[in-house]
């Protein structure tokens, strides 16, 4: 009766799932460290961010129960990421816009030397 009650309030995560996710997270950590040794240049950031996002998704979906949760919570979470993307995206576009017009600073005091 008691354990049935907790099922009713929220999903109970099976231990097998928890350990599998932990194993995957450790695997991806090792993978990302290994890939970093290869020095892939401009691909480095793309690949390591993809791996980090995979890890973050595993944490959010299983450790944070989003898969079994009220979908509204997942929606709130995903929307926050959309706003982060807007924030970073607009800022970067703006920075790129005025970069060519910057006047380089020559003063040694201003450059910190």
């Amino acid at each position, binding site marked *: 009766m*008691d*354990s049935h*009650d*907790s099922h*009713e*309030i*929220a999903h*109970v*995560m099976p*231990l097998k799932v*928890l*350990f599998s*996710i*932990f194993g995957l*997270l*450790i695997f991806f*950590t*090792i993978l*990302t*460290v290994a890939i*970093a040794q290869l*020095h892939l240049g401009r691909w*480095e*950031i793309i690949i*390591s*961010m993809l*791996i*980090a996002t995979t*890890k*973050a998704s595993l*944490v*959010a979906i*299983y*450790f*944070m*129960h989003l898969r079994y*949760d*009220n979908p*509204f*919570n997942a929606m*709130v*979470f995903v*929307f*926050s*990421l959309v*706003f*982060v993307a807007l*924030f*970073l995206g607009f*800022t*970067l576009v703006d*920075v*790129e816009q005025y*970069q060519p017009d910057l006047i380089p600073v020559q003063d*040694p005091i201003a*450059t*910190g*030397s």
Partner: protein
Amino acid sequence: MSTTTAPPPEAAPPEHSGGGNDDHGHGHDHGHDPFLAHHFGSAKQQFDAGKFGMWLFLVTEILFFSGLFCAYAVYRSTHPEAFANADQYLDPMLGAANTAVLIFSSLTMAWAVRAAQLGQQQLLVRLLTITLSCASIFLGVKAVEYSHKWDLGILWSSMFNPQLHAHHSPALLVMSIPAMLAVVATAILFGLGKSKQKPVQAKFWGCLLITSLSYFGGVGLGLTVPVIEGMITGETAVEVAEHAAATEHAAVEHAAAENAAVKHAADHTADGAATTAATAGSVEAAAAEQVAIDMTYTGIFFSIYFVMTGLHGIHILAGMGVIAWLLYRSLLGHFGPRYFGPVDFVGLYWHLVDLIWIYLFPLLYLIG
């Protein structure tokens, strides 16, 4: 709150309904739910409301951290050379060790939520203690990293002044003072709890004593990881002591050269007009100036590094505070199948702190 008109609990088994606000559940489970607030209809409704509130808080946390991620992205887009230059001062293995520790603590936290849901009181206490200890280990490794950077002069913006040799300052010792005080305080309180026959207090302070001692385990881990690294890269035990200095040598030599060049540039500007720039001289001055600018940029990378990891560290400390609160309540036996919300919500926060580190680790340590 239970009313006389309410049916006995067993008489009306609650139907499995997805919605949080079923009026059917109202009334019949108040009698044995000491932690059900009177303004909630059912334990499920209280849980869902709490969880939604926690998610809203996590959203503010994500947006809060995104300001720093934005600073990182902007600075990386305008000065990629600073990031390439900074790569040599960070040890990815220490970052990876800390990542593993945090992921493990996330596992024990998620497991603790399960233990609370199933009413496994003893297991819950143990898992929360392990989670707290992992947080301590994380801080210990971080203290080794920070103190090492302090000794080498790898600091924020204008304080960035890398040295050839780490000078021996008591930085690590000073950073460990809070942990030492915590060990002494928790040991005394543990002893008091034991002698006064207060089992809950004794257990609570005992668990926190384990947590405080784990910090020194973390310091040990932070100090041994570079040694193990040296062994893997094929160095003998004798050389190991010099290994840290050896790996940094190349990096710092370059920086020291920069340093000299900067001084030179300063002299150069001092007698400024008097020097009727021979072409070689002006080229040298230009190079020195470039190096000085590089130094400033790398220093600003470390400003970003210290603020991001520092703020993350503060989140770890805050998480430890709330997990300690959970630990105390779980020792009192508050959590069970009908009431495990706080464990779940703190768990969500803890996973978010882990999630931020999952991004910080490759961004700061791996990508050069």
